[in-house]
């Protein structure tokens, strides 16, 4: 293939990617500007709190408890290779709070919430419900996007906190029931070892991941093409983008909090 053609294609791909990043950034900025400016839609916000926060609790809890339990088993068997089985409480705590809690909750939210927001808004777009909102003097960014992004910003850190606690609980249950750890000592070690910085990083990650998850769902929903294929494509793209952005943001935030 002609090197110029390759360069041209590469250039076009880079420009497309940059344009997409620009559009997502503008969309996020507009979402936040609508969060801050009236009119507000308290009923839609309450519904978003319920569906993003409360109804995600079972999936977050189950993910965290199994991960915490598996983590305890892995650390115990891995640590046994150099006689370090005793570090299970500390490593489960730090692993859940710093990394696994926020990342797994973020990814579960991307799977559950981003997909549902994207599919709902894309269907609304395809069936002209978004146009109908406009003709009824209601701004779609205010009515559909702002409540969901704000609800995710508030509830996902709380879900991460719950996930962290349940994950540590899972590790505790396995360690005490199966691995012969003393219950009180396990808890004491966990509490002693965790620092405020670990907890703050977990909650900040939760807030950022929540915003990413909701914004990607709304963005791709609003950009949806026509028909069932358009809705399917928007849903798939939103989950992919949210998952990748969550993992990338996790890397950046981990660097910010723990590189020193």
């Amino acid at each position, binding site marked *: 293939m002609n090197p110029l053609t390759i360069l041209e294609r590469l250039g076009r791909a880079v420009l497309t990617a940059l344009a997409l990043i620009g559009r997502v950034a503008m969309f996020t900025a507009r979402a936040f500007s609508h969060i801050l400016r009236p009119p507000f839609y308290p009923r839609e916000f309450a519904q978003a709190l319920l569906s993003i926060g409360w109804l995600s609790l079972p999936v977050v809890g189950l993910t965290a408890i199994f991960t915490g339990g598996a983590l305890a088993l892995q650390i115990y068997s891995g640590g046994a290779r150099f006689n370090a089985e005793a570090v299970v409480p500390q490593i489960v705590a730090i692993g859940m709070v710093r990394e696994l809690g926020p990342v797994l909750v973020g990814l579960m939210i991307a799977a559950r919430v981003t997909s549902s927001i994207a599919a709902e808004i894309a269907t609304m777009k395809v069936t*002209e419900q978004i146009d109908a909102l406009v003709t*009824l003097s209601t701004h779609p960014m205010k009515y559909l996007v702002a409540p969901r992004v704000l609800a995710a910003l508030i509830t996902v850190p709380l879900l991460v906190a719950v996930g962290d606690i349940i994950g540590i609980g899972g590790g505790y249950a396995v360690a005490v029931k199966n691995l012969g750890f003393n219950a009180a000592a396990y808890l004491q070690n966990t509490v002693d070892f965790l620092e405020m910085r670990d907890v703050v990083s977990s909650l900040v990650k939760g807030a950022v991941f929540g915003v990413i998850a909701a914004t990607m769902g709304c963005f791709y929903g609003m950009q949806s093409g026509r028909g069932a294929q358009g809705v399917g494509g928007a849903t798939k793209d939103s989950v992919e983008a949210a998952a990748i952005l969550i993992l990338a943001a996790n890397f950046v935030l981990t660097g910010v909090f723990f590189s020193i």
Partner: protein
Amino acid sequence: MIRMENVEKAFGSNRVLQGMSLEIPKGTSMVIIGGSGTGKSVALKCILGLIQPDSGKILVDGKDAASGDRDAFLARFGMLFQGGALFDSLPVWQNVAFRLLRGSLKRPISEAREIAIDKLRRVGLKPAVADLFPAELSGGMQKRVGLARAIAAEPEIIFFDEPTTGLDPIMSGVINDLIREIVVEMGATAMTITHDMTSVRAIADNVAMLHDGVIKWTGPVARMDTSGDPYLDQFIHGRAEGPIEAVR
């Protein structure tokens, strides 16, 4: 009065509106006819500002539709969408009273519900329908709810996008009669886009034929059959032969 002056709109290389000009006098019912993909819906969405035209002017009562207070502008309009465009997550009465539950036209919930039930009754639906969800309704009932929503805030201008598409002939007749009655009763300016010639004769005071992005003919509905315009004649008689190319 609604006035479109040389409105153009293209999507990529597809020039949908190519200088459309049209005037709809206040309190009259204009029906725009034309084949699929000729830009009827685009014209309607340009007036509402759902699509920005590339060039040309749209004036509503002499004022530029693109400038001024958008909320106040939209508050003058009601629209019945082709597929109803009812909000699935809300019960019927909240769909109808949507405008009355929020924004500048907000009323107390009980009053908004009363108005919604009254409008539902006006379009021939029983109060029991109010608490159902749109997915529980038939196509004809959804159109009626859409119609009730369009008239709930007593708009001065009402748009109807393919009001009878997908309905059986009897239900189409019911919807046509309702539209005519409501428009006359409210003294509203109406703009309807349709392919359905029965609808045209039932609803229209004036008719405009849109083809290739421009208005080919416009005039009173009574003159439609004797216009002598080859585009209009071919369309209203549904002939395959004529100046409008039929893709086979």
